[in-house]
């Protein structure tokens, strides 16, 4: 049996006010992507975007999104993503942009990347900590960064993404 090949785009939703992130949901992101693809690439893009496209995972806390595109047209669809300027969710227009961090062939590679990426982010945060308590917490978090142990709330995204079976 031939595997249906897909590409997973790991994107970060950047907003000015992080509290707005909590308003996001899968459907809002999917609608935003679909409409921007239809705007940039027209009916043809919209047609491509209706086959096997889905928002695989969204972490409303960290603003991390996994998008799945068919492998043969992901470049075309990806090229429309920078044109997202806002996401309409729960009746509210959230100005934001998507920053693509990684493109992978499976969810697992994306997840591995995300762990590494988050570790880096924590390292960057470390010097900025105000008191010892915070510093300790960040250190602990860094040490806990691994795929086998997912217990920290910070890495909630990983646990959830592993539930998606790979196709």
């Amino acid at each position, binding site marked *: 049996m031939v595997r249906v090949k897909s590409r997973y785009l790991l994107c970060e939703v950047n907003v000015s006010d992080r509290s707005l992130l909590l308003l996001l949901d899968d459907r809002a992101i999917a609608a935003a992507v679909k409409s921007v*693809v239809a*705007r*940039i*690439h*027209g*009916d043809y893009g919209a047609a491509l975007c209706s086959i096997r496209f889905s928002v695989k995972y969204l972490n409303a806390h960290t603003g991390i999104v996994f998008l799945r595109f068919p492998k043969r047209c992901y470049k075309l669809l990806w090229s429309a993503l920078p044109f997202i300027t806002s996401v309409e969710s729960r009746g509210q227009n959230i100005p934001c942009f998507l920053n693509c961090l990684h493109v992978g062939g499976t969810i697992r590679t994306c997840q591995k990347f995300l762990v590494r990426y988050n570790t880096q982010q924590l390292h960057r945060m470390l010097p900025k900590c105000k008191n010892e308590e915070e510093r300790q917490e960040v250190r602990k978090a860094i040490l806990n960064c691994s795929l086998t142990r997912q217990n920290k709330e910070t890495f909630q995204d990983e646990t959830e993404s592993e539930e998606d079976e790979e196709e």
Partner: protein
Amino acid sequence: MRGDDKKDKSAGYQRVVLKNASPYHYMKVCLVLEDESTKLSAVELKQFIITGLKTLYGEVGAALNFDLLKYDEDTRTAFLRVCSRGLVKLWSSLTLLGFYQNQACAFRVLQVSPFLLALTGNSRELQLD
């Protein structure tokens, strides 16, 4: 994509084989409208084609460069030039254009070639009786 077959400078003989190197493709198209009396200027035709590109390929498609080399208002026949990479897009958007200002229309693509000269000598147009 440029392959030099052989070069012989001494005898003044030079041969170059250019494969798929044509930068443009040329199309000879004819617009058929339901109401034959409708007048359409060259600018309107180009605008119309751009709308077609925009619906099928969005803003990216609308930005595709093509030239209206020649247009005959009476027969609504036009010569278009498009960069080779955009040929399929332009052609398919012409094919899928079905309405001009709420009246049915169709683009009949008469000939397509990577050489403009080829459009002047199509033996399929030979009429002997």
